[in-house]
């Protein structure tokens, strides 16, 4: 592997990432600012109680935040501020966006990380076992449940889980408790249903891919060579098959990341009342609070793009045949 080749590749990918991020910011900004509501309406709702002239309030607020300027100028100012690291002011919550993100990102992060760990570890384990025991009862069961897992919509699964385990059995709270310390068993327990909700579909998908990737590689000639060397089956599968099977699975996991970040996690946070970025963004959309929505969309985009890039780099030592020039 030429180091220069990899470096050039990383730079190229970073430039693409910057372009995509720019596009995402622009589109999100335009969509929200062209909507029927103004960020100032939120103030209106708060202040109309104080019997002021609504038009006056809107005008004052719009003047204060530059919302009365032409849209392109607002957009330009917003971009400049963003580039300087100023993520703007959240109209609906009356605090700097950065502050809002700082308090809420960790709820999304823990949910997504735990769900991916749950889905990837269990999916790989079941998929590999299913392949080793191909056409046995274990394999049929795994296949059956993974098809169910793939087909269940996760919002429905979340609601069912709450109905059964929280409402009926009373094992869990129906609402996520933000008062729990982050690194505590109680917090972990509170995340069980959300993680299952978000992770089951992914896990089922990974199981299918892990099974087929393992089967593909179990038939390869080098597996026969490994057996001919006298290696125990644990090494034949665990080393020779798995190291090859993991390559396509990693790609699949990375492909599924954007769906999780922008789809599953939003829904799961809303269902379980987890105050993560998805829920914040969801609320902000209804308030036309564009600085919040744009920032959260941008963060999600960057997380997905940079994780993909990191994966590509990890790939260069997982698969020595790969070269990026």
């Amino acid at each position, binding site marked *: 592997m030429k180091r220069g080749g990899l470096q050039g590749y990383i730079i190229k990918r970073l430039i693409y990432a910057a372009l995509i991020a720019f596009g995402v910011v622009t589109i999100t900004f335009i969509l929200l600012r062209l909507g029927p509501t103004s960020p100032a309406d939120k103030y209106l709702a708060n202040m109309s109680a104080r019997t002021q002239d609504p038009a006056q309030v809107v005008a004052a607020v719009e003047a204060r935040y530059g919302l009365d300027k032409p849209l392109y100028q607002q957009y330009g100012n917003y971009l400049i501020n963003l580039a300087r690291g100023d993520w703007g002011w959240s109209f609906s919550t009356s605090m700097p966006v950065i502050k809002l993100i700082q308090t809420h990102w960790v709820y999304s992060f823990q949910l997504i990380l735990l769900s991916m760990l749950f889905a990837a570890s269990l999916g790989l384990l079941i998929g590999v076992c299913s392949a080793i025991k191909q056409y046995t009862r274990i394999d049929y069961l795994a296949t059956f449940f993974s098809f169910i897992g793939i087909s269940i919509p996760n919002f429905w699964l979340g609601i069912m889980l709450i109905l059964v385990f929280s409402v009926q059995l009373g094992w869990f709270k129906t609402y996520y408790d933000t008062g729990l310390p982050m690194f505590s068993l109680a917090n972990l327990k509170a995340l069980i249903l959300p993680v299952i909700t978000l992770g089951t579909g992914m896990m089922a998908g990974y199981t299918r891919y892990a099974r087929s990737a393992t089967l593909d590689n179990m038939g390869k*000639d080098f597996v*026969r060579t490994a*057996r001919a060397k*006298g290696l125990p089956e644990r*090494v034949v599968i665990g080393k020779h098959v798995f190291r*090859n099977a993991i390559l396509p699975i990693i790609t699949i996991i990375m492909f599924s990341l954007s769906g999780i970040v922008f789809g599953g996690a939003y829904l799961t946070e809303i269902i379980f009342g987890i105050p993560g970025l998805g829920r914040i963004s969801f609320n902000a959309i209804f308030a036309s609070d564009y600085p919040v929505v744009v920032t959260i969309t941008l963060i999600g985009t960057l997380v997905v793009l940079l994780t993909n890039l990191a994966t590509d780099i990890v790939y260069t030592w997982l698969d020595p045949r790969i070269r990026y020039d």
Partner: protein
Amino acid sequence: MHHNILEIKQLKTYFFTRSGVVKAVDSVNFGIRRGESLCLVGESGCGKTATALSILRLIDSPPGKIIDGEIRYHDEDLLRCSGKRLRQIRGHGIAMIFQDPQSSLNPVFTVGDQIAEQIRMHLKLKRRPTMERTLHLMEQVGIPRARERMKDYPHQFSGGMRQRIMIAAALSCGPEILIADEPTTALDTTIKEQILDIFRDLKQQREMSILFITHDLGTVAGIADRIVVMYGGRIAEVGTVYDIFDQPKHPYTHGLIDCLPDISARSDRLTSIPGMIPSLIDPPDGCIFSPRCPRSMMVCRQKRPKEVIVSKEHLVACHLYS
């Protein structure tokens, strides 16, 4: 009586496929002697690979299955020993090299690691001695700059070099028997000769028995002490190189020899034996070669020929000699 270190008796290996039962190995008997080079020869599809894989129980199952027989190695029957014992023998007592060095090496591990893993496993050596031994083996099979190339991956080597690495890996634990299944078939002609030279050297040393499998009787020169000719999953003839080349008995062996290039200047030389390679599903009654045999008789289509001893070392399964 010579001492056989490996004795294959009445081996039957079948593949159970959608279109029927393929009798890839059908009651095969032969032995390998200490320090000899035995060549297993026959057209492709005659069951050579199936025979070789059966020895180490490497047949893909399903669809394959060893139905019956015995493979005696020292005092053990490899077909009935425990999985643990079998793994001790694989790579250590009996090592194997495959036809396609491209696909037989794992693409994601360094070649050094793929040689070293079996040294670590069987000889229980520590890191440094394993490294030294790997290096020595790579030099021995003629890989230039072996110390640097240990850390390279299979795709960074040519076909011939990859096959050398397979040989180095197979030799790494000093096996008693080396099985080489068409090790030169996937290689270019010039490279082929270089790899054959390695086998000729190994044969000269006589430290190890070699089972060399080929579909080309032309490659056995300089390698074989004895030859087993196989046809349609069965043994046609067994003899020393001189028996087979100078006094071939089986019409099939005659055919193979006639197909060799430059054996004589005859212009009407055949390039292949006429007729089709038989299907090993529902083979004909009697001798499986009879449909293609120029000297076929009535009895050939009715009874399967028994193996007849024609001289001390020479055996043939043909009704002409019974």
